[in-house]
């Protein structure tokens, strides 16, 4: 194992811009940079990247994982390592989803890739030693234990700051811009007249290609967009606790808790639920959210995305939904 020292060229670590990149990227970035590595992100999602993913993944798998395949392949040849941890569980007694558990094995099969850092992250049981996993990753870059510890502490701090920014109502790209000190004066915001919540897996709603810029479009149509990441963990938990049984998916619980919260908030005029075609957790949590929305007579739009989804169809449905929400607010009967 060659270790980066002094004036050598730093090792390059590739991070695919997919899946839980939207939650943990600030942490990973700080960690690797503190250890003297250079972090390389895959390109923004495009049709080309998805096409690569489609070519190499089985047909059955969901759109975001196909996209992740494409992002990993995009990094091939550009980096020394690809960071693709096996995220078994990031929370006590909760999983992410079976596909996250098997992702490194599915990727490994592609061959011809830089070495993959596929450390297991498994907080399912209480006594799991997360720092042991951190150490094993860090030791690829330095043998200095103290350096790894400091990098870990700083990366955690960055992550907490990022989550705080999200809870202030920023979207992940805006929060990243703040963290990286590249906030620019953007164009004036569109005039807004209503609040809409968008509920979905972070890698679906924040990836502008997968969601076909859903959030941007809603903003352009005059809505302020709220997402599950804007809600505090405490509120999520207390809302999700109303279910007859605790959910065992971290992201599913976040979506359910946030959806229940937004459905009951009087200032939120409608909820858009975004699901990936064939997503297992979505098929269950989506049903629960839809039942609740129906019971509360709240405006609710369910969008299911896959690689064949057409942009025009989505726009039509969004426009119709917002029209309905506005009529309802204006006092229309029977909407």
């Amino acid at each position, binding site marked *: 194992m060659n270790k980066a020292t002094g004036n050598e060229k730093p090792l390059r670590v590739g991070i695919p811009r997919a899946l839980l990149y939207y939650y943990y990227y600030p942490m990973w970035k700080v960690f690797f940079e503190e250890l003297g590595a250079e972090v390389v992100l895959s390109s923004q999602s495009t049709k080309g990247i998805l096409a690569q993913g489609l070519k190499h*993944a*089985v047909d*059955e*798998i969901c759109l975001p994982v196909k996209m992740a395949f494409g992002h990993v392949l995009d990094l091939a040849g550009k980096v020394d390592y690809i960071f693709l941890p*096996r995220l*078994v569980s990031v929370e006590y*007694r*909760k*999983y*992410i*989803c*079976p*596909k996250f*558990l*098997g992702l*490194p*094995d*599915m990727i490994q*099969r592609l061959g011809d890739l830089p070495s993959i850092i596929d450390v*297991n992250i498994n907080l399912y049981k209480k006594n799991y030693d997360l720092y042991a996993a951190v150490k094993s990753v860090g030791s690829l870059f330095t043998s200095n234990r103290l350096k790894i510890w400091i990098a870990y502490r700083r990366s955690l701090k960055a992550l907490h700051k990022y989550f705080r920014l999200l809870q202030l109502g920023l979207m992940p790209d805006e929060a990243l811009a703040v963290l990286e000190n590249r906030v620019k004066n953007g164009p004036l915001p569109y005039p807004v007249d209503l609040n809409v919540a968008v509920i979905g897996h972070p890698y679906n709603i924040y990836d502008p290609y997968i969601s076909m810029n859903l959030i941007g479009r809603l903003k352009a149509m005059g809505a302020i967009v709220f997402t599950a990441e804007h809600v505090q963990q405490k509120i999520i938990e207390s809302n999700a606790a109303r*279910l*007859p*049984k*605790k*959910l*065992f*998916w971290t992201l599913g619980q976040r979506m359910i808790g946030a959806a229940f919260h937004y459905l009951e908030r009087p200032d939120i005029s409608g909820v858009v639920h975004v*699901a990936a*075609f*064939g*997503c*297992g*957790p*979505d*098929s*269950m949590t*989506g*049903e*629960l959210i839809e*039942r609740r929305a129906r019971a509360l007579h709240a405006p609710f739009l369910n969008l*299911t995305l896959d690689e064949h989804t057409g942009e025009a169809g989505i726009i039509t449905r969004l426009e119709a939904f917002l029209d309905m929400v506005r009529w309802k607010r204006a006092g229309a009967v029977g909407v």
Partner: protein
Amino acid sequence: MRVTFPHMGNLYIPLKAMLEYLGVEVVVPPPSSKKTLTLGVKHGPEFACMPLKLNLGNFIEARELGADTVIMAGGCGPCRFGYYAQIEHAILKDIGCDMQMIVLEPPERHISELIVKIKRIAGNRSWWQVIQAIRFGYQKARAVDEVEMAAFKARPKELVPGATDEAYSKALSLIDGASSLDELKVARERSEQIMAGVAREPDRPVLKIGVIGEIYTLLEPFSNQRLERHLGLLGAEVDRSIYLSEWVNDHLFLGLIKGLRSRRDACAAAAPYLRHFVGGHGQETVGSAVNYARAGYDGLVQVFPFTCMPEIVAQSVLPGVGKDYDIPFLTLIMDEHSGEAGLMTRLEAFIDLLSRRKETREAYR
């Protein structure tokens, strides 16, 4: 309390025996059929996997026969089966089919959570009787599995078409009819004789096919379009990666009974391809594929319900197994739109491919 439960192949025989041993009144739902599935599809979530829809149909049909309580298993993920019972309960309530649900969950905090639920079913029977009932149920499950294995062996070689099916249903009803451990012993011997009595042509060449995949679609013949029977009739001796009694031994008795195939071997064999469990039976599927390939099987058939997450992961890594061990495999995905004719065509083509491969290999030897 009139208790019902979902169908999963021959599960009803041991489960009914166990509950009746405890003096519980049991309503076995009508066998899963098109009508069951139609009911489930109508009321269930569109993107839920097929077992949920069939469960739902079973419950609705059992209620028509007078059942008022459902016994269902739970789970703690990541496979969505763990949340089935709660969703099904909500749906049943909404369509005015309010049935009591007793969900047997793996205890989260304390074993007492499970004990309370067993007591709700068993009433004031003693723990000794509960244990006896479980033993009786297990013995029946084992007997049923043995009959099934014998049928897999007999079918490709039967002389009179349909003889195996006839013997199979006769043997099953014998086992189903036994109401005590002694009676079961007799029934077991008798059914063994019945299965051995199927006239066969001993030197007819057969292909050996391992059937792997998700447990429900493996065990429930309605959900897999009677896949194993078709394979048998096409001249293939079938083995299945999961049998009910093995599953019970692995998951409920924690491997207490020795001498049965266990999931540990399968998971160990899966290691180079899938190094972590992925929920459901994903890792077992990959491991069984490796084990079948090592045992010299001619081909593999993987079967799972549409959108089943653990099996999709298994499917993604199976090509590696197929390449390394040079074994062809066919993946069949089942949902409410699957048709038997389409399946037959694919199976015939697969069998043709396998037998040609086998012939060529033997010619070169």
